[in-house]
């Protein structure tokens, strides 16, 4: 598949936005400005970007506790996201969700999720609703290697398979479930092999190659839209940071870490764009500068936003109140 200049530049912009947002979040967390936990997506940007580039505004995603990248790739606004990280009233969730639970149902974002694997049956249900209503929309379920060991994985995959639901399960195999390396938490090399157990296609792709991810996701999305049911795409990637900010990640093998940092998906895409003559270094630097300004504006927006008022603790518990 030959991707257009516009496609590749859009990928670049999204990936740089995620990276910039995350680097800023790391900096703010270290400075003590963000409450709670923050789980960063640095290094995995090609997955969300390549997958979501196949989706429309009507499609749905379920995300994970490492969700900032998915949200940005699905169209989430960085200012509202940043305000939520600060716990401000202007945030996506009015300060009630925080980093791990950002959502925008209008954009099809059914939430980052603090429970590993919880998005899998929810995605199946959203896909069921799309099929039931005949809306033509589909759902993408992002989850990690650790989540593929949960019962939710099996139950959602099985239900989606027998009901031929329009859902694409995207496993971001970043090789770590908190401190447990994939080698220690499962006895197989490729998580995509698990698709065979449900009678659905399973493919493994280089998760640091946005084009490879885009192409694999295009297949899965096409299959889902045409009524043929779910598929499983495993994107092999690497979590650059600790599980959460503040985790020194001493359990990681430094050699492996070093090797993976060489496979940074952003310079790889930049090189491709330059080789194809779609942009110059200066053009790409201009994109990066614009993104930097956008993220800086998001921080300014968050910092100047009001806190929720204490009475808000009681609102939004029940609909219709």
């Amino acid at each position: 598949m030959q991707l257009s200049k516009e496609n590749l530049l859009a990928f670049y912009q999204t990936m740089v936005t995620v990276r910039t947002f995350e680097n800023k979040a790391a900096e703010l967390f270290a400075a003590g400005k963000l409450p709670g936990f923050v789980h960063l997506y640095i290094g995995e940007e090609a997955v969300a970007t390549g997958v979501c580039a196949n989706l429309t505004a009507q499609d749905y995603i379920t995300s994970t506790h490492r969700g900032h990248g998915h949200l940005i790739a699905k169209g989430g606004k960085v200012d509202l996201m940043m305000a939520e990280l600060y716990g401000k009233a202007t945030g996506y969730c009015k300060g009630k969700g925080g980093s791990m639970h950002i959502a925008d149902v209008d954009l099809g974002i059914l939430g980052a999720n603090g429970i590993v694997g919880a998005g899998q049956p929810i995605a199946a249900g959203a896909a069921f609703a799309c099929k039931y209503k005949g809306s033509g929309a589909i759902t993408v379920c992002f989850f990690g290697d650790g989540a593929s060991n949960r019962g939710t994985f099996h139950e959602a995959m099985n239900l989606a398979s027998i009901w031929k639901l329009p859902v694409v399960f995207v496993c971001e195999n970043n090789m770590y479930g908190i401190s447990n390396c994939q080698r220690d938490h499962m006895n197989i090399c490729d998580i995509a092999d698990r698709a065979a157990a449900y009678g659905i296609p399973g493919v493994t792709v280089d998760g640091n190659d946005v084009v490879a991810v885009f192409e694999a996701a295009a297949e899965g999305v096409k299959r889902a839209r045409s009524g043929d049911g779910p598929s499983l795409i495993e994107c092999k990637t690497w979590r650059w940071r600790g599980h959460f900010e503040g985790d020194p990640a001493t359990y990681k093998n430094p050699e492996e870490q070093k090797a993976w940092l060489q496979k940074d998906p952003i310079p790889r895409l930049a090189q491709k764009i330059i080789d194809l003559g779609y942009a110059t270094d200066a053009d790409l630097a201009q994109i990066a500068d614009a993104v930097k300004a956008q993220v800086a504006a998001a921080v300014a927006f968050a910092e100047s936003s009001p806190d929720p008022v204490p009475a808000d603790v009681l609102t939004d518990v029940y609909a219709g109140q």
Partner: protein
Amino acid sequence: MKKMTYAEAIRDGIRVEMKRDADVYLCGEDVGKFGGCFGVTAGLVDEFPGRVLDTPITETAIIGSAVGAAAVGLRPVAEIMFIDFTGVCMDELFNQAVKMRYMFGGKAKVPLVLKTICGGGVAAAAQHSQCMEAWFTHIPGLKTVMPATPADAKGLMAAAIRDDNPVIYIEHKQLLGLSGDVPEGEYVIPLGKADIKRPGSDVTIVAWSWMVHRALAAAEALAKEGISAEVIDPRTLVPLDKDAILASLAKTHKLVIVHEAVRTSGFGGEIAAVVAEQGFDLLDAPIKRVTAPDTPVPFSPVLEKAFLPDEGKIIQAVKELF
């Protein structure tokens, strides 16, 4: 009005709502061809093709998928065959369904009904007989419904389906065959409105689900001895009609709470606390609780009889107040 059993009334409630609203669907283990483990949903699969879905044995996916479907616009009625099996899908219920709205800052609604059945008396032992409503009442964002009569069963099912929040609707095995007059067509009983099942003036007995009937039998016997018991059925534990309980106490000044669930941390404790906080001056005697003891539900009918609250235990508790 039409005579219906409790089971038929539940089915009628679901049927009317499915006819009314194409977004309502029913799913669960054996709810379709088999008609439900207790026949409650019999025939609906033929009436509503594509909207009554037999699932695999997959409680996590039943409730998890219902959460996803509800969040994007459907109104699932998702059955968990026995309340004892809800442990398998508790994450989907208490971490997902009920928190989505709050954690999303009010920008989601999850109108799902978790339909299930509770209760003992059929020698089904400890994994098919429990009354676990207190678990669910402890979850903010969830509503808990426990109908005791056919008419209530229908009207509360309609309200549960129409509600924009997650609702657990708990049937009782002992009541399925109970017959009564049920309004035909659309019939909705608002959640949070108690029903005085029997008026009285000397003592208030608060009971729900099957225990309403045991309380009524006890009240009947007590009347013969000159004690007039008022039986209040809250019908929904969340929202709880505190006003109805306090109003009754303003008349009777004595309170007995009856539930089939085990004693410790049972919902009776919550009602007692509400009364202690808001109606202490109304009380002329200590509050009594008649409950199952803190054990798993036993198998042997002899042991189960000893386990369950009954008319005799209720009468004894009431008499201790006089």
